[in-house]
């Protein structure tokens, strides 16, 4: 196992030295074959092999984790890395954990240990990836729902599709707790986004001392806020007809609280895609405009996600991502097979400006 001193040393600068050089953190087999990989194969759910031009093989075992990770679990993962992977491990950008093994014989014992510790092994082709999510009630002041709770409840249902590889194609699911969407969930196959649906309440007594009025007015994307004196002192008024509940004003001005236990809820979006394979990348479209926040397990939202997943699983041809399936059967059929109500809210009346650029990597070079 590489010691601490072999991987990092104290920088000379006091600040701005940047993240540590990554090279010493790469397992030796990766260093030897960096840029020389030839092809890869998925051996079974959660296990793949990459073969180098040199003939060397590296085996990857992937398991799902929780983005919120205790130091106890971190040490446990470190121990597993020591036991099976020469002291190295990595995370994926979707909160999964990967062990890169140079010894094929370590695969099964590692999987057994991971499974015993409660980590599902899977998440590769034909599977759902781990759901990415934001901070939620646990740790963000603008959240309109909880991220960890919804994610856990959804992934409990999707677990069977993480550990197997029977889905028509890759499935990416995500959650964001407000439209700021840390993590850009809006291009996922299935996304839940927490929304407000009631205009902010101006705290007239407070606003003058804690907010800058012109900045607050300017923050609104739909010009719903105007300066309006209150009791002779500068304040603002909100045009409730115009407000789209985006929370921008609250972001810049604490005296415009918008969180509301009755009106905050979850919306469901489908058909986003990031990779360029077959069809261009796309943002997800609205499927269900609003569902209530129902802690601790959000049954309505979980059911809606599973409705889409099951309809797609049954209806899609092999290899079709959610949007490819929907494009083939058409949106009217999508609403029919899912039973979601189509409403006037599904018609986009928000003017976005230009829509004709090449939002993909499709270029004939």
């Amino acid at each position, binding site marked *: 196992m590489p010691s601490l001193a072999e991987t990092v040393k104290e920088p000379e600068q006091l600040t701005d030295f940047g993240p540590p050089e990554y090279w010493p953190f790469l397992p030796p087999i990766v260093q030897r074959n960096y840029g020389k990989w030839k092809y890869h194969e998925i051996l079974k759910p959660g296990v793949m092999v990459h073969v180098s031009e040199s003939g060397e093989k590296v085996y990857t075992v992937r398991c799902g984790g929780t983005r919120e990770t205790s130091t106890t679990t971190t040490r446990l993962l470190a121990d597993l890395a020591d036991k099976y992977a020469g002291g190295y491990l990595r995370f994926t950008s979707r909160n999964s954990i990967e062990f890169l093994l140079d010894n094929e014989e370590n695969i099964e014992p590692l999987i057994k240990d991971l499974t015993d510790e409660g980590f599902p092994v899977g998440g590769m082709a034909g599977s759902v990836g781990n759901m990415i999510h934001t901070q939620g009630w646990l740790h963000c002041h603008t959240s309109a729902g909880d991220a960890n709770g919804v994610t856990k409840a959804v992934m409990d249902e999707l677990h069977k599709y993480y550990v197997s590889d029977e889905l028509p194609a890759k499935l990416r699911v995500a959650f964001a707790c407000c439209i700021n969407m840390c993590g850009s969930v809006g291009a996922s196959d299935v996304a839940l986004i927490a929304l407000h649906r009631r205009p902010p309440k101006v705290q007239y007594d407070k606003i003058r001392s804690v907010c800058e009025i012109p900045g607050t007015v300017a923050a609104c994307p739909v010009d719903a806020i105007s300066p309006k004196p209150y009791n002779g002192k500068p304040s603002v008024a909100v045009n409730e007809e115009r407000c789209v509940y985006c929370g921008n004003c609250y972001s810049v001005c604490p005296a415009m609280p918008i969180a509301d236990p009755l009106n905050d809820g979850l919306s469901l979006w489908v058909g986003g895609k990031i990779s360029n394979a077959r069809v261009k990348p796309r943002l997800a479209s609205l499927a269900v405009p609003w569902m209530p926040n129902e802690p601790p397990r959000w049954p309505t939202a979980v059911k809606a996600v599973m409705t889409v997943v099951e309809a797609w699983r049954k209806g899609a041809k092999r290899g079709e991502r959610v949007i490819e399936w929907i494009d083939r059967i058409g949106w009217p059929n999508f609403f029919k097979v899912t039973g979601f109500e189509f409403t006037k809210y599904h018609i986009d009346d928000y003017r*976005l400006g230009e829509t004709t650029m090449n939002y993909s990597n499709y270029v004939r*070079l």
Partner: protein
Amino acid sequence: MSNETAKKGKKWETPLLDQLKEGPWPSFVRELERCATTSPRTEDLLGQLEQSYKDNVNHWKHGGMAGVTGYGTGITARFSAMPEKFPGCKEYHTVRIGQTQGYFYTSEVLRKLADICDKYAGGLFDFHASSGDIQTLGTRTDELDPMFAELRKIHFDLGGGGSGVRTPSACIGPARCEWAMFDTLRACQDFVEHYQDELHRPMFNYKWKTKFSGCPNDCDCSGVRSDLSFVGVWKDNIRIDQDAVKKYAEKMNIWEDVIYKCPTKCMSYDEKNGMVIDDSNCVKCMHCINMMPKALRPGVVRGAQIRFGGKVTMTVGARLGFVLVPFYDIEKDKKEGYPFLTELLDRIWEFWDENGASRERVGELIQRIGIGNFLEEIGLDPIPEMIAFPRQNPFIDFEEYYEEEGEEEEQEE
């Protein structure tokens, strides 16, 4: 998971959260409980979250400042809105720590980070935050400087935040992927090292995100998650191993699974000619290569495509990044010290600085003033690769009109 949880760490009854310990997926509540056994402040975090589950709203205060000396960012200050009831959450700040490229770690460095996280935070990590950073949760204001001092000893620096360059991230690239068309990890590390000041002392109108994916599969989601997206591409022909194609033909329907799905229908296959690809019409979507990795491989003339202006909803709406530079010879630029990239960014940032409004992402600015004007300002020619199709409305804002000879004089008289 082993059951040493929560003898200690049970200051609060959490009947609602307890229901999230059931089920087959790993439970974040268990993670919080593990922290709570040694961290009283995380015990209170559990209590406050249970309170949110009862009340259907979060209980964090808006705003408040906290930072590390010498840095303008890296810390997200969090103050509880119920500090009397949950004193441990009174100050429960996030520390963003720049991740290693590709998220590779050793067991020893993780243990060291865990020690620091236990000592100066609530024993709780995010592996990783949406930006790519490692986050620790639960540091008090007066602990920030000492915590940073320990992080510095192991060469871990703060990540970005606020209206500046955010921590960039990259796909695993050449470390374990045969399709990496450029060295994503090196490019990302070079970028973050070069823009330390822009990262740590935010001076822009709003955030700026940068991501690197090695090929158009875009595993790092750069086309949607970043203002500045690099996606690896090749320029020459897909390399075909006809024997391997034949083997695939034995186990799959090449026409059904591959050829019909090619977006530009530039492929064909038969026994006699084998696989034939009209590479001049290939848009490098990766589909055929994904399906037959042993038979088809990307070409060898490689670089990156720069897409630009991608962002999510805040503040005026979501959009994907569009093609700004169809082929960027990143290896060549790297050898020379990145003159092309740094000069391009200087021009874009100057333009953004002069024309943008506060909290206006650069993609929103160019939407507001027009992409044509933006290109002119930054000195790039408009080219058809940038668009899906030309404009469909006739409201053309011509910059000048013709006049009859002598027209002007006439009017002046």
